[in-house]
């Protein structure tokens, strides 16, 4: 049982890693920095619904550190960490509340990822006016969250059919 889980987690790490790379190849220009497709969050959502919070959190952190050292730089790793941790906590709370479906949980994740990044950026460059980016980034997070959430639910359903941990 344990080996199965380790293999599955490794697979997800690889997938999240590749998605992050693809994301860096697709720049999105909506006038403000920090907007991304959120493809990697698809993997985190699927992990959250299939192997539980602890493993999903581990996956999220491993992904950020790996990506930080390869495709990005240490500064952007800092922003990703803030976004990743805040977004993960928010998604856990949203999921535990039992009031939202995968789409809702994913939307919460997308929005809070951007909120976390902006807060970290405000702290790093000490420029409070970065807050002005937030409305646009919230909408971007919403849009990406909806798409990723719908996809995530579809993938989760299929993955659950294939894997059982017993």
């Amino acid at each position, binding site marked *: 049982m344990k080996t199965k889980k380790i293999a599955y987690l490794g697979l997800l790490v690889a997938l999240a890693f590749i998605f992050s790379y693809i994301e860096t190849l697709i720049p999105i*220009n909506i*006038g*403000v*920095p920090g907007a991304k497709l959120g493809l990697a969050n698809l993997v985190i959502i699927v992990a959250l619904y299939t192997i539980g919070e602890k493993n999903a959190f581990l996956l999220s952190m491993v992904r950020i550190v790996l990506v930080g050292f390869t495709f990005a*730089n240490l*500064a*952007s790793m800092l*922003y990703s960490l803030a976004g990743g941790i805040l977004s993960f906590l928010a998604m856990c709370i949203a999921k535990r509340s039992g*009031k*939202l*479906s995968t*789409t*809702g949980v994913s*939307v*919460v994740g997308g*929005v809070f990822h951007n909120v976390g990044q902006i807060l970290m*950026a405000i702290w*790093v*460059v*000490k*420029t409070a*006016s*970065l807050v*002005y980016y*937030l*409305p*646009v980034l*919230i*909408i971007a997070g*919403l849009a990406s969250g*909806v798409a990723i*959430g719908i996809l995530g639910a579809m993938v989760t359903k299929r993955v659950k059919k294939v894997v059982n941990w017993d």
Partner: protein
Amino acid sequence: MEENKKKNDLILIGVLLMVALAAYFCISFFQGANTKNGVAVVTIDDAEYGRFPLVVDTEERIELPDGSYNLLVIQDGKADVTEASCPDGICVNHRAISKQGQSIVCLPNKVVVEIENGEESDLDAVTN
């Protein structure tokens, strides 16, 4: 149960959308109404580098000790970063800014260009 969740999703999305849109319009309204004699203030890593009034067309190459740079161009009352050494180029892609509180940030170089209000001139106050 599932139907309920879907409804909650929609409520969540709707509320977030409305809050973001309201905030967006409030911000652009206040920025526009409050801008007078805008000055582009450039800071590097929280230390002020220079102030450039938007009424004067200029070009300033902001050089950093490590050799990286951002090119700030002020034209037609707007400030824009048109060239930079940073890898992501986010500051270059950013639109030109002219309203108070707007900013262009280059995170890799820690360069911030922010629009502030300049000294209020008496003439403007009268003609207003």
